[in-house]
């Protein structure tokens, strides 16, 4: 089941800001809701560090949600974030026990299970890509990051990496990309 959020104008504006990676939106959500999550975690065997981690992960879930095509929330952003963080924290508590899954003694408010599953899949893909980028080594890593992450132009990249011209840089980029792709799929196809 997908949780949906009410069309509260300020919530929608915040989520749109989040989708555009706006600093102010992130900060506002922190200011409005951090204490609520901190409290929830402190009364459930956690410490401030746990709260900081869980909140960040909850924000990533919210970001992914705001980016998704079928994005809609019909509970308040606050409720949604709370439910997500609560679920994430429970999972963490269970993992720390390492043996066993405990039944859900803390009730959930919004149905977020599916969103968290999507998030876990995404996180896995994220990690695979990150690993693959680590493995290809330099200069490939920086070259690809410059082009695909920082969206720099080939001409600029050629200058920064001291290639004689943009075409040379481009050829090098292809080679690197092919290697990255191989590494990525080698891992990706082995994960469920």
């Amino acid at each position: 089941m997908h949780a949906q959020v009410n069309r509260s104008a300020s919530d929608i504006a915040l989520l749109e800001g989040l989708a555009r990676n706006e600093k102010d939106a992130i900060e506002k959500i922190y200011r409005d809701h951090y204490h609520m999550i901190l409290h929830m975690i402190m009364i459930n065997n956690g410490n401030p560090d746990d709260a900081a981690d869980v909140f960040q992960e909850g924000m990533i879930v919210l970001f992914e949600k705001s980016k998704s095509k079928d994005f809609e929330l019909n509970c308040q952003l606050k409720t949604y974030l709370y439910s997500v963080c609560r679920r994430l924290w429970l999972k963490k508590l269970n993992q720390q026990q390492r043996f066993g899954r405990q039944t859900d003694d803390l009730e959930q408010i919004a149905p977020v299970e599916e969103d968290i599953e999507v998030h876990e899949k995404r996180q896995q893909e994220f990690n695979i890509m990150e690993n693959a980028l680590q493995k290809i080594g330099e200069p490939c890593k920086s070259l690809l990051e410059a082009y695909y992450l920082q969206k720099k132009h080939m001409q600029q990249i050629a200058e920064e990496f001291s290639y004689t011209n943009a075409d040379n840089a481009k050829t090098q980029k292809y080679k690197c990309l092919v290697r990255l792709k191989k590494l990525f799929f080698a891992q990706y196809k082995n994960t469920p």
Partner: protein
Amino acid sequence: MEDTLLIDAAERYIKGEMSPEEMTYFEEIRKNNAELDQSVVEHIFFLNELEKFSEGKKFRHQLHETAAKLSDEGLISKSKIEGKAKLVYFWNRYKRTVAVAASIAGLVSILSASIISSLSSNKESNIQPLVKQINEQDAKYRKLEKQIGQIKSATIETDAAAAKQRVESKFQATGFLIDVTNNYIVTNAHVLKEARNKLIIENNKGEQFLTQSVYVNTENDLAILKVIDADFKKLPPLPFSIKKSNADLGEQVFMLGFPKEEIVYGEGYISAQNGYKMDTIYCQLNTSANEGNSGSPVINKQGELVGVISSKESNAQGVVFAIKTSHIFRAIEEVKKQPGNNLIKVNSKPTLKGNDRVSQIKKLQDYVFMIKGN
């Protein structure tokens, strides 16, 4: 079309940089060449992944910056202490409260399963009884305190038991051989979570052998390891076979595992065909299992493997979940596809049937190992 050209075309295609004629041409050749179309589809998928990664990375970066800023402002309070200081912090913080016990249990299980096993060595335990023991039994409380003290003064991973090991282990679990020719071991995926550097198996004699994981599936919680240590001596064919169908309800089973530093035998029966919340990956056993039992083989009277211990319900006594063997077969098929691991094969010569339990265990125990790592 050459590979680089193809990549270039695919990139311009998704960016919408193609002229209408070029796009028509590109779509035409994709239609007529299934193989080429496949690699275009794959590449587009890959580029999307890269784009998602890029966005995610930027967001995480922004998030960290914001968190750092708010942390400076004092909105986010972080203990800001890492490593052993963190331990002291935890310890001081929880010392007096009743909730201590749970967090110590958690803490301890992160640091070293061996503390837990030493605490629970003479009593059947799970997380809950452990809590009680700490509060009620002063002696044990002191013992724990002493061990925490040791941890404080030593590095995180070190404790009395682990210090003796050649590999200082952060965790302990169980695994068992399924291929004696190429030496593949089955265990739980969750066991490997904390294995960042070394992953070893240890036999009942305390000999350690280096392994590496070749398959990790968090969905069904199975992992397959390969022993890569030249010192590992080949064992005779497996004395047990792996049952292809599900275990029968009520079937008597036993298991061998390493909840402590020596092999431990346990008995039980299949109490349900499905796991927690009707999870079909697992079957349910009625038995007792402790930390370290993860990855233990579950064997029936006929000497067939019917499951792999994975977890237990912490709210109920004696409810233990084991992964059904069908998933082992599937995992093996997956491993087979990997170059270099294509020879994996279950080679068993079942000799347990009809034997009494004691001789069954004697034959089996050499195939069950402690899984350790750091």
